[in-house]
């Protein structure tokens, strides 16, 4: 299964400048693509376009073609796309349905909307909760969880829809270190489990550990695009407004100071 963008450009309603330009992107089965870039470089826009929310819900104008398994999705309504591409956002609370009084019902919300049979919903819900290791929260009120836990519930709610592709827009941005760790570990497990994920992050350390490939955006275009190790070690990263991952920054500083970077190697996993 694959999701592909070819020559995609996008403008928000009422804005003359395009927010996204000439984007070519391929998200294959089981592939994790990391997206980073300075603020206002187009990361969130890319997520909205890939998930189909832009222009279907957000409005605006789109160019180029988006295909799922080779089939154009141009005339697909949002609810049809939602079953194939899931999207999660930064703010954990605004993703809650607000109608569910238990985590179980919150996670089941998507499949319920899709009209899936009841037994299948129950199975999918337990499975999604299990994948994120939050079965223990099933009976809790989602509105009374910590930000990190809520973010996991939101991700489980996406998984329960069994999308072929998952889009995560800075899932750890609003979380404290404990919450960030919870979500980062969950993303890593999903990636290892073979989920196909597009994830945007300022935290390049996280991308370094989950992404197969990384693209860096600048002014709505891909400035860098390649294997994670190469892109995150690219000297242009700093001028693109991206924070270097800690291990790579250390290696670069070591090289500049004439210190053998290999010295850092045995301890890098400290």
């Amino acid at each position: 299964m694959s999701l592909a963008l070819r020559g995609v450009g996008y403008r928000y309603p009422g804005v003359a400048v395009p927010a996204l330009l000439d984007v070519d992107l391929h998200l294959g089965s089981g592939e994790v693509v990391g997206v980073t870039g300075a603020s206002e470089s187009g990361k969130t826009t890319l997520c909205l376009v890939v998930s189909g929310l832009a222009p279907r819900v957000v409005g605006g104008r789109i160019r180029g073609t988006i295909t799922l398994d080779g089939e154009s999705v141009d005339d697909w309504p949002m609810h049809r796309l939602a079953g194939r591409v899931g999207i999660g956002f930064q703010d954990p609370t605004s993703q809650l349905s607000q109608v569910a009084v238990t985590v179980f019902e919150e996670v089941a919300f998507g499949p319920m909307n899709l009209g899936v049979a009841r037994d299948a919903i129950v199975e999918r819900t337990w499975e999604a909760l299990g994948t994120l290791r939050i079965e223990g929260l099933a009976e809790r009120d989602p509105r009374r969880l910590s930000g990190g836990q809520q973010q996991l519930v939101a991700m489980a709610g996406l998984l329960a829809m069994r999308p072929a592709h998952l889009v995560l827009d800075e899932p750890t941005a609003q979380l404290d270190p404990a919450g960030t760790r919870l979500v980062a570990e969950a993303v890593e497990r999903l990636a290892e489990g073979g989920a196909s994920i597009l994830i945007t992050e300022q935290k390049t350390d996280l991308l370094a550990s989950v992404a197969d490939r990384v693209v860096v955006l600048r002014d709505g275009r891909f400035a860098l695009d390649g294997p994670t190790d190469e892109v995150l070690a690219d000297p242009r990263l700093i001028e693109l407004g991206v924070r270097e991952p800690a291990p790579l920054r250390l290696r670069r500083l070591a090289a500049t100071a004439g210190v053998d970077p290999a010295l850092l190697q045995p301890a890098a996993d400290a």
Partner: protein
Amino acid sequence: MPELEARGLVHVYRDSGVRALDGVDLRVAPGERVAIIGQNGSGKTTLVRHLNGLLRPTEGRVTIGGEDASGMTVAQLASRVGLVFQDPDRQIFSSSVTAEVEFGPRNLGRRGERLRASVARALVAAGLADDGEANPYDLGGSRRKLLALASVLAMETDVLVLDEPTTGQDARGVERVREVVEEVTTEGRTVIAISHDMRFVAETFRRVVVMREGRIVLDGTPDEAFAHESWETLSSTYLEPTLAARIGHRLGLGPTPTDEGLIAALAARGRTAQ
């Protein structure tokens, strides 16, 4: 420049009964750079909101330059202690960046040349000098956050308190914040910041205060806070030392919380080995 002191600070939230501060003593000298770290709910935000009177202590007291803060209104305190909130969208209301930055100093009675000069300085410091006419809502997350910073900087307070200044910031934004912290403290003013970003903390601050369950459990230099002896304390409030600190410990280099420090220590060891 005044000294800021909290003594025996206890705060119990009236509606929930939560004891958010449980006996905090903190003394900050003029020109200090202090980072407060700890997991959510450890009392960091509650503590800093006492410094400008937004919250009043259940027990204990806050003094500024020896003067008891309980006798001052929030408006009076605001002219001495500036507090930048975490979420810029909870304060921005003006239709231009300049008007937004003018709001604080105007409330303090600044007018004319003094107002213009302080606003201009704050915009430059925050890297928004070219955005004066822009509508704040057209700015992206990083610049909106810098705008909130500028709007308090322009009040030119003796003490600047920042709540999570780097969340939602890109690399340039983080760098900007670091420069502002350095500039302000060079002038002898005090900066106190709450942060979850350990690299930013290690590289920017000279003193690190660790909070857990409403108490200060560690108070020292970054070297001390990220030294191996402190790791257990850090992890008890869900914090992790920086990668440089961890590598430095593994290589037996002593405390090396910053990347630069670690590399310098390695280079020095290389030289002695030769």
